[in-house]
């Protein structure tokens, strides 16, 4: 463990301690803990920056699962540092913002911050991991925390829908990612990222190279909401706004970008990588920007904008991979795309974070995020207006903001491949600048609409009556800081260009340093009359024109066919799979344990039988067996006879006594087989068990006298006989096959010497294998508690059972259907009862479960208890009404 480990794990530690801390200082808002921790982490990580800048990455390692070669190695280079600072820096601002934003319901606030901290820890672990498997673990953890945070308002159907959607899509990608990592391991024999990079050259010719790349890109594209996997991000906006600002614009969605950047040295230089990453990014860019224009919800605009901007960065990462194809000067030309990607990553986090927070403030102050109901807020919320202008200018790529510089760099980067001459670029490269330019126009439009429709124009009558004013200081401070930062990045880009951006770009393209090239670190606001500047002027001109005429052409969106939407495909496939799985499961999961036991036994028969008859080293030994004394024959035959008689016993006591007989005969067997401890134990246990059986019958006289023979069933009989025969064969096979030295010799030798006991069995129990015994008595304790609960605490047990009342009443489904109709224009997936319960009987069953059990309808209880339980039910009724 090192300091870096401690830093990466500290959010988890705080998350674990937060419930206790919160209770210790109940008056302090839980968000302060998160904010303070983020500040500390941010400062500590900044401390590494000089070392990283000097080109000396920090590596700390400690063995975690040595047997699998999994070590928890942390690796901090330029790329990781940029992301880690982004995570902790945004973490500070979001935590402060959330203190004002999140209302004060202490119980669920703790939950919120626990999730948020776990997310922060997972994200830090993700960007610091050097091992692919730990990276994958953290990757999935971010998906899970994102799921929990999107579903934070779990009583809302849309929150649950969005949470599930994001989880399903990102987890599908996560599975792809894992398989891709395993393929990488198969090819290279290592899970360490740095070792992979050294092996990069021989990997490219491997037949598994392409599948591994595709699978890993699947993971990255789903996480970073690239087309066509973007559909989860707009639905994720159901999360509280701080979460949207943090997870779904600044950090988590960038994990995919991080992964692409991190593995770029491994995959870059191939045509597939270039085309998939840059084209995927480009399509996402234009799709997101075009779709953002038609949105009416502030957060939806920002969500599609995020999709589009992520596409932009993805595209830049793809373009930067060209630099590894060339050498020398030309290589540096393409490497500029990598620098642009890193810079835009930072810019995007800054301006999008501020805009999200503004959207939250508007929502908080006016109660709506619908731009159709907003307007003219500039007069009453001047500060928010200023901040949003800063953010929107940066987003639209206007000078003198940071976004302008990175947008310029992007436009330059898409022009560069025009004369690359590889990967069929000579014919297709012209598409890149055209699409990029159109997307920039739309980016300008939605940025303008975001500000214009919210803050300018006339105030709507519905809002005129409300007292709307700027948000409190705590809420305004974080976005204001970000807005200032957006301006600062534009005016003084060299603040970060040498310390953060160049080291990050260096680790994105390590081949440059290897060949002795030096990335130009300087980023300038004004860089002369370049073609890119001309494109920007064009964007502004066309953008202003289209924004002013927006009302006329926005109707065109209505002509986009809805039936073709990916959301519809997602919903339909979800419904399809639900139906299929229900059908398949009901084929064999018929609810009868007998069937399940038969499956298990059947499988056992197959596997064991197969092994027995196919293994070559199994022999059935004959001869040299122990001699059977005459009286032992009686016991053996008695065992067989007594056990065979059990199924034929008509009354239950007889069956029990026959089983007891078997047990006592076993005692005798143990005596003859020289196991005195076993004989003693078996005898006492058998006596107590039989007493227990009879005690049960003592209370159930009806059961004792009922006479019912076991009905003969041929399938059961055949299964039983087959298992019996197989086990006999197994026993014989084990006798004849003994490939290993028995461990018991060691026990016999060491029993007295090192454990000081003469009864070897007892020594094994309490000393050599004391852990087993320890756990065994624990199992016994649990069993006895279970029995105690079953018998003594039954009243309470029903209370717990009756609490499984569904929160939403019958109108929840109705509400859900309505939401679906409003979003997609048709009845979406049924997540409720109707798909689960195909047959009416099952449906009734579920309905019945939902109905609360009223305990006072029990007839067999004491009056005192009745009083208590009915008062309980009264309380519960009250809860339900709330």
């Amino acid at each position, binding site marked *: 463990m090192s300091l870096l480990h401690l830093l990466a794990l500290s959010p988890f530690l705080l998350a674990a301690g937060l419930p206790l801390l919160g209770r210790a200082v109940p008056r302090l808002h839980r968000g302060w803990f998160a904010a303070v921790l983020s500040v500390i982490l941010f400062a500590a990580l900044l401390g590494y920056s000089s070392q990283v800048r000097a080109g000396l990455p920090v590596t700390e390692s400690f063995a975690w699962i040595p047997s699998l070669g999994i070590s928890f190695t942390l690796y901090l280079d330029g790329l990781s540092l940029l992301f880690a600072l982004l995570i902790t820096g945004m973490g500070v601002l979001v935590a402060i913002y959330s203190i004002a934003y999140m209302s004060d319901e202490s119980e669920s606030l703790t939950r919120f911050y626990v999730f948020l901290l776990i997310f922060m820890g997972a994200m830090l672990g993700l960007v610091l991991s050097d091992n692919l498997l730990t990276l994958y673990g953290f990757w999935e953890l971010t998906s899970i925390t994102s799921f929990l945070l999107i579903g934070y308002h779990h009583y809302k159907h849309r929150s649950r829908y969005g949470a599930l959607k994001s989880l399903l899509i990102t987890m599908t990608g996560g599975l792809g990612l894992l398989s891709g990592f395993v393929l990488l391991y198969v090819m290279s024999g290592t899970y360490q990222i740095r070792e992979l990079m050294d092996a990069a050259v021989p990997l490219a010719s491997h037949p598994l190279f392409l599948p591994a790349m595709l699978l890993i890109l699947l993971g990255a594209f789903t996480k970073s909401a690239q087309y066509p996997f973007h559909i989860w991000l707009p639905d994720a906006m159901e999360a509280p706004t701080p979460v949207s600002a943090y997870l779904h614009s600044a950090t988590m969605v960038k994990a995919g970008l991080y992964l692409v950047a991190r593995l770029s040295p491994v995959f870059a230089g191939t045509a597939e990588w270039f085309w998939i990453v840059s084209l995927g990014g480009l399509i996402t860019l234009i799709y997101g920007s075009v779709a953002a224009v038609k949105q009416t919800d502030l957060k939806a605009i920002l969500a599609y904008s995020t999709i589009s901007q992520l596409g932009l960065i993805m595209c830049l990462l793809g373009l930067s991979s060209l630099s590894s194809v060339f050498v020398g000067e030309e290589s540096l030309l393409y490497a500029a795309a990598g620098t642009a990607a890193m810079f835009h990553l930072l810019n995007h986090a800054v301006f999008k974070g501020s805009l999200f927070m503004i959207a939250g403030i508007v929502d908080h102050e006016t109660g709506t995020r619908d731009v159709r109901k907003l307007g003219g807020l500039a007069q009453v919320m001047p500060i928010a207006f200023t901040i949003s202008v800063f953010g929107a200018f940066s987003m639209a790529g206007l000078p003198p903001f940071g976004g302008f510089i990175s947008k310029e760099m992007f436009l330059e980067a898409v022009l560069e491949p025009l004369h690359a001459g590889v990967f069929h670029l000579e014919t297709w490269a012209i598409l890149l600048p055209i699409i990029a330019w159109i997307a920039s126009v739309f980016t300008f439009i939605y940025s303008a609409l975001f500000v214009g429709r919210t803050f300018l124009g006339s105030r709507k009558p519905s809002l005129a009556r409300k007292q709307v004013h700027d948000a409190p200081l705590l809420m305004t401070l974080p976005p204001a800081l970000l807005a200032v930062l957006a301006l600062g990045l534009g005016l003084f880009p060299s603040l970060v260009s040498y310390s953060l951006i160049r080291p990050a770009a260096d680790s994105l393209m390590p081949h440059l340093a290897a060949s002795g090239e030096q990335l130009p670190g300087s980023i300038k606001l004004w860089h002369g009359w370049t073609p890119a500047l001309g494109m920007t002027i064009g964007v502004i001109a066309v953008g202003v024109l289209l924004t002013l005429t927006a009302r006329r052409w926005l109707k065109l969106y209505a002509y986009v066919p809805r039936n073709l939407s990916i959301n519809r495909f997602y919903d339909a496939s979800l419904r399809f799979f639900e139906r299929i799985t229900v059908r398949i499961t009901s084929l064999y999961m018929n609810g009868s344990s007998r069937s399940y036991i038969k499956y298990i036994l059947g499988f056992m028969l197959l596997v064991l039988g197969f092994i027995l008859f196919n293994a070559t080293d199994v022999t059935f030994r004959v001869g040299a067996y122990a001699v059977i004394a005459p009286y032992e024959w009686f016991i053996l035959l008695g065992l067989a006879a007594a056990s065979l008689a059990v199924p034929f016993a008509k009354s239950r006591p007889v069956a029990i006594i026959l089983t007891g007989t078997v047990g006592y005969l076993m005692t005798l067997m143990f005596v003859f087989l020289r196991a*005195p*401890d076993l004989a*003693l*134990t078996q005898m*006492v*246990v058998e*006596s*107590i068990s039989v*007493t*227990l059986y009879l*005690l*049960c019958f*003592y*209370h159930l006289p009806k059961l004792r006298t009922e006479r019912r023979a076991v009905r003969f069933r041929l399938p059961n009989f055949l299964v039983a006989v087959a298992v019996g025969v197989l086990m006999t064969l197994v026993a014989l096979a084990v006798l004849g096959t003994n490939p290993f030295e028995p461990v018991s010799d060691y026990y016999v030798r060491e029993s007295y010497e090192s*454990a*000081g*006991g*003469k*009864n070897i*069995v*007892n*020594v094994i*129990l*309490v*000393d050599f294998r*004391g*852990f087993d*015994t*320890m756990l065994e*008595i*624990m199992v*016994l*304790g649990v*069993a*006895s*508690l279970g*029995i*105690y609960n079953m*018998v*003594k605490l039954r009243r309470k047990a029903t209370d717990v059972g009756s609490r499984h009342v569904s929160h939403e009443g019958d109108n929840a489904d109705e509400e859900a259907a309505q939401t679906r109709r409003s979003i997609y224009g048709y009845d979406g997936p049924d997540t409720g009862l109707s798909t689960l319960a195909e047959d009416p009987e099952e449906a009734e069953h579920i309905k019945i479960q939902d109905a609360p059990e009223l305990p006072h309808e029990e007839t067999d209880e004491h009056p005192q208890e009745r009083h208590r339980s009915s008062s309980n039910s009264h309380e519960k009724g009250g809860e339900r009404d709330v």
Partner: protein
Amino acid sequence: MSKGSDIFLQNVSKVVVFIVLAFALYLFFTGHSSPGGGFIAGLMSAGALLLLALAYDIETVRKVVPVDFKLVTAAGLLIALCTGSGALFFGEPFLKHAFGYFDLPLLGKTELHTALIFDLGVYLAVVGVTMTILLTIGEDN
């Protein structure tokens, strides 16, 4: 169970219970060198108490051994756990036992063994579990 079911059984059990308990004690202490040990002794003791319950009734057992057997189980588990963890303080792996030979008055040369304490935990746990089960069922109505 009905009260006063059998005078003969009651009188015999008065004697036998003590013999069985003494035997259980013997099994417990000799467990390390001859047949016996915590499990057997625990079951045997529970058996003795069960005999008492059968001959008289559960109330009698409650009166004779006025303890909550759930707590006995917990105590047993705790003792076993503590014995196991004790080794950790001496830099030994969990559940590593120590033993030595001492000259004690009356008993002569005696082996003292931390395994015996662990076995005591096992003994208490087994007694507690068995009696909890039996009494729970027996008292149900």
